[in-house]
């Protein structure tokens, strides 16, 4: 059975398989894996097969919508899909059916890509373990005693377990790249504004970006091509014409002359696991073997990234999540006697602990008397971090770092210490603050626990083409592709 989008696409177009056969195979695998993985909140078999039948009849008639017509792709449960419950893994939205399609879903449908199941996540994308879901704790397919990472843990686990060839996730501070790294798959966070956010339930509007989680870089490019582009419904989406990224990956890129920046602050810090460091060093050596040149770069303000991020992200989240009040839709407390009680009980019962913690933090930092000390200062730090990155990209084409300081956490490891969990976002968070693009690639396994280690490549604004080309060259040369 073909496993990647491009292989499936080829077989479909060659007439070797039908979309129904493809979807049935993945549904079968899902049925087999779900009891132990729990990557999905729901999978609507009937709907998927109906779309597969339609795709097959289009292909028979010669009316295929695109080469990807009839391939299944999972959706993170914070992406609106008309007619399906979009709960964000939260009790408060557990009964809310999407009245419309997110722009990415509309684009997928226009290409014939079949939305395949609602992937589990940390509630409202707040978390790094997928344990903050109101419905299920997803397990890491590589070791079910470990978490798949988060917040797009369900998407990454579903791809890694072979339940689906690819998935969409969302990345606010690393939520695509970190679970991709933990599960040994590819995760791409596009440049802010490349993919429309319309229909992505907002966590932190200025940081959120939808992106692909796939088995290889070619699929990441294919899926990004399918979902990106200017959207008049999203005022922050970029107005750009771009050539197909997948087409640029036809031949592996020659890395001679490519300068890879190594941010010294990322390698000097404590907390970087020795075995992770070893795999990353091997990846660097590999790049050098392939002709790339490494240069030392510095991101002097990177140390403020986590603090700035948790101020800005929670501030935006406190307003974004205010609409979930049980008045117009969603869970409303039945025993509330007045308006205030309706708010308190609906929100008190509907939100999980981590979400409440972040709403409180965000409300606090925006409060009169604290705004300058927190929110404003965080925005200044954000500007400095962006300037650091811009200066670094003057000296190199892309930067390289570990995706995460460690391999996948053990389940429950951070239950009582969220701050430690926040600090583990150190390598991924800055890219969201700058709006630039990044990708996590499987680079090998940790010698001590055997878990996958991801290497993160970072590119400047709209640097996806080079980012993917370099990633593709690396991937092609490494024998390491293990599922």
């Amino acid at each position, binding site marked *: 059975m073909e496993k990647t989008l491009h292989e499936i696409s080829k077989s479909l177009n060659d007439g070797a398989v039908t979309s129904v056969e493809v979807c049935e195979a993945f549904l079968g695998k899902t049925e087999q894996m779900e009891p132990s993985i729990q990557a999905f909140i729901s999978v609507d078999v009937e709907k998927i097969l109906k779309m597969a039948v339609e795709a097959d009849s289009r292909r028979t008639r010669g009316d295929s919508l695109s080469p990807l017509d009839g391939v299944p792709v999972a959706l993170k449960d914070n992406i609106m899909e008309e007619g399906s419950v979009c709960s964000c893994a939260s009790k408060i939205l557990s009964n809310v059916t999407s009245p419309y399609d997110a722009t990415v879903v509309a684009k997928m449908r226009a290409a014939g890509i079949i939305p395949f199941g609602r992937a589990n996540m940390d509630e409202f994308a707040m978390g790094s373990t997928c344990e903050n879901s109101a419905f299920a704790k997803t397990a890491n397919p590589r070791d079910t005693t470990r978490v798949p990472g988060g917040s797009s843990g369900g998407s990454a686990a579903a791809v890694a377990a072979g339940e689906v060839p690819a998935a969409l996730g969302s990345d606010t501070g690393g939520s695509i790249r970190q679970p991709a790294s933990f599960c040994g798959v590819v995760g791409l966070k596009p440049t802010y504004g490349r993919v429309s956010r319309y229909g992505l339930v907002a966590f932190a509007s200025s940081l959120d970006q939808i992106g692909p989680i796939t088995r290889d870089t070619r699929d990441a490019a294919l899926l990004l091509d399918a979902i990106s582009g200017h959207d008049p419904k999203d005022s922050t989406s970029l107005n750009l014409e771009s050539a197909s990224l997948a087409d640029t990956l036809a031949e592996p890129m020659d890395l001679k002359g490519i300068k890879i920046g190594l941010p010294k602050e990322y390698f000097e810090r404590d907390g970087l696991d020795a075995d992770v460091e070893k795999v990353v060093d091997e990846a660097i050596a590999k790049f050098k073997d392939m002709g790339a040149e490494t240069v030392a770069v510095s991101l002097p303000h990177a140390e403020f990234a986590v603090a700035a991020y948790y101020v800005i992200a929670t501030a935006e989240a406190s307003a974004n999540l205010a609409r979930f*009040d049980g008045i117009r839709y969603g869970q409303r407390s039945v025993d509330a006697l007045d308006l205030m009680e309706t708010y308190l009980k609906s929100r008190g019962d509907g939100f999980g602990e981590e979400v409440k913690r972040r709403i409180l933090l965000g409300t606090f930092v*925006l409060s*009169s008397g604290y*705004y300058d000390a927190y929110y404003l200062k965080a925005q200044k730090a954000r500007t400095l971090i962006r300037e650091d990155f811009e200066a670094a990209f003057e000296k190199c084409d892309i930067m390289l770092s570990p995706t995460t300081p460690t391999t996948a956490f053990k389940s429950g490891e951070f239950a009582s210490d969220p701050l430690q969990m926040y600090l583990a976002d150190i390598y991924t968070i800055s890219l969201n603050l700058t709006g630039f693009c990044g990708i996590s690639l499987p680079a090998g396994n940790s010698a001590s626990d055997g878990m996958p280690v991801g290497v993160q490549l970072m590119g400047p604004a709209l640097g996806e083409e080079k980012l993917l080309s370099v990633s593709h060259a690396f991937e092609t040369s490494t024998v390491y592709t293990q599922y």
Partner: protein
Amino acid sequence: MEKYDVVIGLEVHVKVRTESKMFCSCANLYGAEPNTLVCPVCMGYPGVLPVPNKEAIRKTVLAGLMTSCDISKFSKFDRKSYFSPDMPKNYQISQYDLPFCLAGNILISGKRFSDREPLPEKSIGITRIHLEEDVAKSTHFPKSSGIDFNRAGGPLMEIVSEPDMTSADEAYAYLTVLKRIMRYADISNCDMEKGELRCDVNISLKPAGRKEFGTKIELKNLNSFRSIHRAIDHEIARQAAELDAGAPLSQETRGWNDDKGSTYLMRVKETESDYRYFPEPDLTPITFSDEEIDAIRAEMPETPDAKKQRFIENFGLTPYDSEVLTNEKAVADYFEKAATKSSNPKQIANWIISELLRELANSANEISECPVPPANLAELAELINKGTISGKIAKQVFTEMFQNGGSPAAIIEAKGLLQVSDSSAIESLVDQAITENQAQVEQYRTGNQKVLQYFVGQVMKLSKGKANPQMVVAMLKEKL
């Protein structure tokens, strides 16, 4: 000398007239079935994003230009957070520190309510004009509440004045002038009954001559300009009485009960509300180049003040007539169209003020629906001037035109109203009048000149109003 100085500032919300709402494509309409003009965006559904309405922004800038504001070249939207069931997102997209328009002013004029004397002209400062989204409308029933989201997300301008007003009369005049400007520029109809204009009043009293402001009281629930006037007068008296009694005023919000004619306490403001403003991350900042501002300026209609001045200078109108005619732009436009076709613009002004506006008021019609086109009014006036018909017949013709349409010439023709200027015909009528009124002939001949008018009346009556009055007078003088 008054014992207290009164300080009044107004916060006026004006619904901007646009096709669609501020951040979505729903129709921006009043009066539809509740909750029929809604979509996921204006209902605050998960995942939706706002897209700013360019026309609403253009009209807000236009409002700024019409009120001599500085237009910000860089402005942005912010989120204003508070929980309320009529606010779908529990934050309102508004503008905090960088509104579109800053530091303007308007010249007010009007009358005092007490003695109908004109108010002295005065400039009232405009602090700022910003754009935001409207909230839904709540209706409370005995055991439940209903929310109509049709209004939610409509474009709403907030116009904040400086605390430059000192009386109910000035506040009334300010609102009247502001409304006129908004209607002139087609920014809004400002119909308070439809909620197109809402006004909160900030009012404080301080001992005469003192510098520091007194305790500010906010008045809400004001449903008409007249009730705003009454509420301010009442509130000045109430606060003065409290201060006279040595009672300290507390900072509070008071409502106006129009039936009782008094204000009532709504809530005491213990602390400033914390709205946790921060820049709206879903929208990019809005910038204007000089060229873009100039382009809007080029579309700016003449202000009511400028038009009033021009009518006085170009058409020789009195300030009063010019004020009446420029009160509504549509009336001013009507006048101007008719006046440019006429040899006597003052005459046109009189006809509009004394006949046309009265007929419109009687028939409850807008001038836009007026059945008499400006050209026909001008033609009617010219027929008087040429002696074709008398002024009296002209009024008859006008009534006919207003009720059934048609051109004056056609009506005169159809009804045989042409003025009689044939001297032999007039002579026979004059002779008849003299013969039939011998007693009055005697009075005239013994020196009572006033009787001449009586004879004019008799002749006009005999001619059914059609005789040329000048010829009648001349012939009577000759024959008597």
